[in-house]
């Protein structure tokens, strides 16, 4: 089977790489530096060990790691049949990655934009292959979430959509089609909810535990919005809200100052050991 490129070894890239490898795909995982890649492999090994404990299938960590190679720099994915890009939700960073990928990859390589907010048509426009660029919004943790948003851009061809759906199916994912619009379904609603929840804490109306308890106890959500923010990453939440604010130029998306302060202070959630809650750092 041909190799799938995974760009970005953060929370999402790690989940995508693990999901691909555990469903029999060969993966090249790419990031800017060796340290990030080494940490990513350690996380994949740990998550594979924990899979059954978390209600997933029993996984063989060694087998999963044997299907993943790593490379520094986006050019490392040059030979991939499909590239799934998971870098930070920052337009300048994404644009640079796509310019490199477009120059390095073969003409038939499909680029899958894993984004929760950035318009797919905008990404496609910086490449010379807008028909082969498609959006997929994976949810976190990727291996545990069976549904994704699938977003064709303005120029995306039906063949690209089919190839992407085939890969998603092989990964055990069901795709919900959404038209290309900043934030799609999930983030238009979720990010405003998290942002407003942060305002409640910021204004002293309620503490984080109380906000989350209402969502779990009253609405039956498995996790409240601020636990979710810690899982996604407070810095990522801030980016996503800022992207919506910038794109729609609508003040309803103005980011809560608390999210900015937490991001500056390094309180990024589970991945940093502290966010709205404190975690056992390891």
């Amino acid at each position, binding site marked *: 089977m041909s190799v799938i490129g995974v760009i970005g070894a953060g929370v999402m890239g790690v989940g995508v790489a693990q999901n691909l490898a555990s469903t029999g795909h060969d993966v090249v995982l790419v990031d800017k530096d060796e340290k990030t890649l080494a940490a990513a492999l350690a996380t994949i090994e740990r998550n594979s060990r924990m899979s*059954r*404990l*978390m209600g997933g299938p029993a996984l063989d960590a060694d087998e999963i790691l044997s299907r993943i190679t790593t490379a520094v720099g986006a050019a490392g994915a040059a030979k991939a049949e499909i590239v799934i890009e998971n870098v930070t939700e920052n337009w300048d960073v994404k644009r640079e990655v796509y310019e490199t990928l477009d120059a390095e990859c073969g003409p038939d390589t499909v680029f899958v934009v894993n984004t929760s907010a950035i318009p797919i048509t905008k990404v496609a426009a910086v490449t010379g292959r807008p028909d082969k660029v498609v959006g997929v919004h994976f949810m976190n943790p990727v291996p545990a979430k069976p549904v994704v948003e699938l977003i064709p851009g303005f120029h995306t061809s039906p063949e690209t959509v089919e190839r992407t759906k085939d890969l998603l199916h092989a990964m055990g994912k069901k795709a919900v089609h959404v038209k290309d619009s900043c934030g799609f379904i999930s983030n238009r609603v979720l990010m405003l909810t998290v942002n407003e929840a942060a305002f409640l804490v910021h204004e002293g109306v309620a503490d984080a535990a109380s906000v989350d308890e209402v969502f*779990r106890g009253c609405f039956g959500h498995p996790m409240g919005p601020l*636990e979710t923010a810690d*899982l996604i990453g407070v810095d990522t939440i801030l980016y996503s809200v800022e992207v919506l604010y910038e794109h729609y130029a609508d003040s309803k998306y103005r980011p809560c100052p608390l999210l900015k302060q937490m991001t500056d202070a390094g309180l990024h959630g*589970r991945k940093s050991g502290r966010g709205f809650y404190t*975690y056992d750092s390891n």
Partner: protein
Amino acid sequence: MSTTAKDQILTFVRERYPQAEIDASQDIFALGFVNSLFAMELVMFVEKTFGITIPNEELRIDNFRTADTMASLVARLSADLAVA
């Protein structure tokens, strides 16, 4: 050994969930607000605190439901370590 382990585990769980009354035989996953992500934290806490590596076949949720079951897991694995 196991009494100490039990106390340390209970302290860790109570610090994370101060709003709940948790004793050593309480199934923490039955409380309604503890999700499976905390199971992963428990594994890491137990491994780090007691200097053990939990083998894959022991990474079952039933081993982590209560401070009692976690303490007996620690005792069992520490005994294996002592024999080896």
